[in-house]
């Protein structure tokens, strides 16, 4: 059965190592912060200029000067640092952030990602997404395997304007965990109750099935 948003986030959080600096995009990526495994500490980077982002504030802690990259009120953890936007993107573009997790409309077998613009619809902007995909050491894309009409989002070639080229290595969907290797999607894990054939049928780009496809632990 396809995983829920929480289950995708849970699987994402299994990727983190103790001591990782992590930037989480809006949506499912943000949920991953709630599922960090026991014994693992990660520090969250918010690209408006906060390293060590904490939970949302209580009513009595609300502070207009403390917001996250989604412009929501937020807190800082003990040991956090706050800095300007150039510094924030220096750590992103300089490859110092260990993990970036973000959503996408499409990913293709060359590791290209489209996540910010649908022609014909109003374009609001890319924010920090292009910087993040160009700079992070490890990028995980989380998304549903197909769009709401059932069309594949893992493609031979992205059809929408790109956010970044040749930068995506790992994709976690509601059906599978895949890597981008040698011009194909390498199927590593499948969701419980989902068959390799299901995944094959819903993947647009070339799919290579790993010798040992395991079941996602969620």
């Amino acid at each position, binding site marked *: 059965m396809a995983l829920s948003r929480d289950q995708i986030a849970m699987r994402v959080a299994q990727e983190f190592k103790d001591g990782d600096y992590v930037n989480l995009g809006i949506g499912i990526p943000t949920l991953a*912060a709630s599922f*960090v495994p*026991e*014994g*693992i*500490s*990660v*520090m*969250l980077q*918010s*690209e*408006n*200029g*906060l390293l*060590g982002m*904490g*939970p*949302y*504030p209580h*009513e009595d802690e*609300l*502070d*207009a*000067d*403390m*917001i*996250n990259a989604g*412009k929501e*009120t*937020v*807190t800082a*953890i*003990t*040991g956090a640092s*706050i*800095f*300007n*936007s*150039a510094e924030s*993107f220096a750590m*992103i*573009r300089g490859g110092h952030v260990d993990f970036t997790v973000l959503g996408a409309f499409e990913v293709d077998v060359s590791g*290209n990602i489209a996540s910010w*613009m649908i022609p014909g619809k*109003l*374009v*609001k*902007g*890319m*924010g*920090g*997404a*292009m*910087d993040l995909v*160009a*700079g992070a050491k490890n990028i995980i894309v989380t998304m549903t395997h197909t769009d709401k009409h059932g069309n594949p989002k893992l493609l031979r070639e992205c059809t929408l*304007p*790109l*956010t970044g080229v*040749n930068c995506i290595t790992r994709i976690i969907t509601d059906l599978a965990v895949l890597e981008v290797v040698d011009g194909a999607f390498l199927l590593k894990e499948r969701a419980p109750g989902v068959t390799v054939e299901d995944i094959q049928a819903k993947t647009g780009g070339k799919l290579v099935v790993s010798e040992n496809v395991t079941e996602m632990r969620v």
Partner: protein
Amino acid sequence: MSGFDKVVATYQEAMDGLADGMTVIAGGFGLCGIPEGLIAQIKTLGIKELTVVSNNCGVDGFGLGILLEDKQIKRMVSSYVGENALFEKQLLNGELEVELTPQGTLAEKMRAGGAGIPAFYTATGYGTPVGEGKEVKTFNGRPYILEEAITGEFSIVKAWKADRYGNCIYRHTAQNFNPMAASAGTITVVEAEEIVEPGELNPSEIHTPGIYVNRVIKGEFEKRIERKVVSKTVHNTTAKESQ
């Protein structure tokens, strides 16, 4: 030392010299850390045909959004402009141009502008619509695009504390683009929550040295919160760990 006293008493003095067609660089991220009174003064002055460089364009009725009401902005350079219905309308009407710029590139363009660096190479945007028409150069096997610096006739900045010499300290994430904006303006105007005497700020803790600043004014801020989200659970304030 009076030559270094940059404090002005009125918003009129603070924005004196701003004229139609100029470029204004504004600090702030969303509604956080925005120079509210200086933006209001630009509205009062009715200056038109402005190019405004700022990560966002406020919301309807607040922040830079109020400059849309009388169509004072001709061109907006931003990374994200989705919070604002009037912006959307003017963009679709063709009354407003927008140059969407990746957030890190925007910050670096301002930083470079202030530092006398005319352009820089970055991997951000290569192979995307942002990279179209820009020079590409390969370093160590990876392609980068050339991005040009930004400077402006005016920069408007919001500080927490400023001293009379223009040294500034920002508070929490209200820092954001303010230090880069401060460095990139020909005339940089700081609106501060508090003005103190020289010596009251710890020199080692100053974010923006006064050399970048031309005018300082004491402001009153509403500090509106754009997205109030409140937690109902008990916090663990150490590094993010499972319970």
